[in-house]
């Protein structure tokens, strides 16, 4: 395949076993000149070791304030095919499940209006269509939305929620991650498409503490499945693992962080009230051990990337909450959390940052959650704590 530009450096990246994004871009040149000029400009970036994109101004579809990311080449004369190079975010189905028919539908429309290049998926979860022009946006939106595909989100808005595969294909799912994510996505449509928040707000849902969607690290609101009662143990399967040569003492008992799981050479016993439900034993002995039956979710808040004051992981706010259809309790809690943030945050202040500024107390009081030791890894170290007038009245 000989393209419009010589791309000696990029061609290097077609070698080797891992599938090549350059090959993908070259394939897309059959669809559009966009892909061709994208390759040309990228080769130039490789040669000169710098990017040539400009920040997007204002592009979008009428009535929505997000879902499209504007991007322009800073070398439009040299690479006219990417003078406009906007991205369209299509809201993915929960759990990234598709049928071939659905994917072909996506491709058909995109081939008609866009570059032929996609990201499956964006890092937040959207199905990303990579590279189109401003004048195509309304048509793209009409085509997709009329067929049941809506835009995802961008800007200072509720961002596209995402989740792990959960009950779709995982034996450890303690909550219906797919159903809850679909519910929340529908519930927050307005907040997703019309940016009215102080800054972005992300929700990710994992079915258990293994957290296969990095909810605790990459979401303002992290929902993580858990349980209340005892781990279910199948001693026959414990024996089977031992027979297969697993060193249960070293691999499981000694790695149990609370020392609450004991192995006597035959059976496993668990002191469940001391178990933190960390999932290690269950994950490594899936046939023998299973989560308890009384299931729900832990709600955590605040994680984000390092800009400006360093990365945050999410903090436990509600240790256990029921999360079953129709998800009323969780939805109400989330609404309260967002309302407090929306009322108090400065522009571009994520909820984790706001919490650091305000402290937990006003937040917990506003959302009506009592202080609990589960919310902290350890209590404060300093003697500088505050008392309200109400506190002082309690004798």
């Amino acid at each position, binding site marked *: 395949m000989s393209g419009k530009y010589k791309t000696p450096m990029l061609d290097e990246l077609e070698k080797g076993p891992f599938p090549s994004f350059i090959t993908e871009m070259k394939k897309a040149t059959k669809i559009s000149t966009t892909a061709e000029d994208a390759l040309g400009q990228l080769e130039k970036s490789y040669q000169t070791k710098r990017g040539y994109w400009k920040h997007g101004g204002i592009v979008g579809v009428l009535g929505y304030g997000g879902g499209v990311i504007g991007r322009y080449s800073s070398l439009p004369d040299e690479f006219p095919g990417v003078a406009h190079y906007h991205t369209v975010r299509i809201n993915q189905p929960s759990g990234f*499940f598709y049928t071939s028919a659905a994917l072909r539908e996506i491709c058909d429309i995109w081939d008609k209006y866009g570059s032929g290049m996609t990201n499956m998926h964006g890092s937040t979860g959207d199905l990303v269509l990579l590279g189109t022009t401003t004048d195509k946006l309304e048509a793209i939106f009409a085509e997709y939305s009329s067929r049941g595909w809506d835009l995802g989100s961008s800007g200072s808005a509720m961002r596209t929620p995402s989740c792990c595969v959960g009950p779709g294909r995982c034996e450890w799912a303690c909550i219906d991650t797919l159903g809850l994510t679909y519910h929340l996505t529908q519930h927050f449509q307005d907040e997703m498409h019309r940016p009215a928040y102080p800054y972005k707000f992300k929700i990710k849902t994992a079915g258990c503490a293994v957290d296969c969607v990095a909810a605790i690290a990459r979401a303002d609101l992290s929902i993580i499945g858990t349980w209340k009662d005892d781990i279910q143990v199948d001693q026959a399967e414990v024996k089977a693992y031992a027979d297969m040569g697993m060193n249960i003492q070293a691999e499981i008992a000694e790695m149990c962080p609370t020392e609450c799981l004991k192995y006597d050479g035959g059976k496993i016993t668990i002191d469940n009230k001391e178990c933190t439900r960390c999932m290690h034993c269950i994950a490594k002995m899936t046939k023998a051990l299973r989560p308890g039956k009384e299931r729900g979710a832990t709600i955590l808040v605040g994680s984000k990337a390092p800009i400006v004051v360093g*990365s945050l992981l999410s903090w436990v706010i509600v240790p256990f909450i029921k999360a079953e259809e129709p998800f009323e309790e969780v939805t109400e809690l989330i609404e309260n959390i967002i309302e407090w943030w929306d009322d108090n945050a400065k522009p571009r202040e994520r909820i984790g940052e706001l919490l650091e500024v305000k402290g937990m107390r006003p937040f917990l009081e506003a959302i009506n959650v009592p202080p609990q030791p589960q919310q902290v890894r350890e209590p404060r170290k300093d003697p500088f704590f505050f008392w309200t007038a109400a506190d002082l009245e309690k004798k």
Partner: protein
Amino acid sequence: MALPQRQTDIGPPKFDKFLPPVIKENYGQWKYHEELSGGTMVHVAESGAKIWTVRCASPRLLSTETIREISDLADEFCGGYLRFTTRHNVEFLVSDESRLQPLVDKLTTMKYMIGGIGDRVSNIVHTQGWVHCHSACTDASGLVKAIMDDLADYFTHKVLPNKVRLAVACCVNMCGAVHCSDIAVVAVHRKVPKIDHANVTKMCEIPTTVGSCPTSAIRPNPKDKTITINEEKCMYCGNCFTVCPPIDIHDPEEDGVAIVVGGKVGSLRTDPKFSKLAIPFFYNEPPRWPKVVDAIRNILETYEKHAKKHERVGEWVERIGWERFFSLTGIEFTFQHIDDFTFMRDTMRTSAAFKY
């Protein structure tokens, strides 16, 4: 041609439209799973029903042509059903055991890279880089390709003490998982941006530009209708460039990448952890960043050799101590490693017990 009638706020299609029948029937009723190979596994339901998964590497940037090809494969072997993972791999969902081996064979002949399941390296979470983002300080896709080519065996079959999660961030915005990955690359600038004052005056809103700086390093210069940067305060984040391109943060000769290690996301055994700085800098060396690739392999092999079974990279390092991590890997310890940011006090050693 008239466009179809647009609809708003309909949200995504409901996922259950896309679930294979065996999943619909056994939704939430899975009992256990078994790893069958580096890239295949089977999940078994309470009912005894089974679903097989074949996982293939994806560059994430996919052409519609490839998506169609994948769709054809799904039709041929999976009744049309497939999914993508949270790390951007493709998963073929096989409901009929007799179609499993033929699918694997066909994928193999088509040079698909099957793997990423179990205690291995999976796909690298990464974002746009020079392919699409104005903020990029390196190319993400190229780095990923170079690293994954080198570590291919760890994706397809070689077994490690536990999963190793890699990530690449093309700037400090870190649109991915770099801050909590086992081993990750983050692109960094190293110099205060150069200001093209004439164009700042022409093209930029001064208040917005001043407001864009997270460290308040930018002050307005109303006299000359431009801005000045306090070099002491600037941490090379590039936010100013985003709102005002004449403030050029890019310096091809001094931009590059750092390597961080030891993060994790799951709560298994130990709390989730942030990644910490291992190597502060490599120059950008497109197209294959050989020094970065070697450095990652060195860290991975040191981990492979010394960690206990089930220990993640960060758990291993915390058991042996960071001072030992540096001596085992032979990585030089520099001033850049010492935290001088907001939370210095929690990273300094406040103990008389340490290894030499």
